[in-house]
């Protein structure tokens, strides 16, 4: 990758992995916040209702599907952009 030696790639991979762990905590927190906000709005009881639990679960599924889709689109767009830049095009 970009002319890095094996040991440099190892250092890079370690750093990225550590960074991703930290990122993950933030992303996980955002997911909980967003699904909680959308799904839980009744505080007559302290237990999550069946409806709320179902909503949370669908919210997570949808989030995963969204992320997967956005990952694919992002890769495509990024590849097209790289190509455009390499051609020196505007």
């Amino acid at each position: 990758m970009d002319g890095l030696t094996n040991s440099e790639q190892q250092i890079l991979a370690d750093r990225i992995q550590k960074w991703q762990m930290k990122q993950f905590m933030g992303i996980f927190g955002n997911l909980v916040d967003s699904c909680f906000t959308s799904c839980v709005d009744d505080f007559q009881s302290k237990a999550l209702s069946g409806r709320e639990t179902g909503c949370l679960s669908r919210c997570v599924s949808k989030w995963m599907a969204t992320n997967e889709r956005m990952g694919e689109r992002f890769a495509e767009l990024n590849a097209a952009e790289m190509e455009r830049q390499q051609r020196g095009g505007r």
Partner: protein
Amino acid sequence: MFGFGQPKLSSEEKIAAVENEIKVMTEMQTRMAKICSQKCLDRTYREGELSKGEASCLDRCSVKFFEAHTTISEQLQKEQAAKGGMMGR
């Protein structure tokens, strides 16, 4: 961004450059997913799968987000260049 014909970089600089590139890209993708879900998803969550409408909204949103990114960055670069001619570059 980073690329061709650069002067020799130290090992650390090379790693940092790729590291930065990966982080910038990952962050952009995360932001894009977050913002486009806010704009496209039905928040009642009656379904756990993406509807056709949501999926095509996400696809269009991603293209627009990317384009907005490019447009804004080009404008900033232009204005920066016009203003900061003295700072070299």
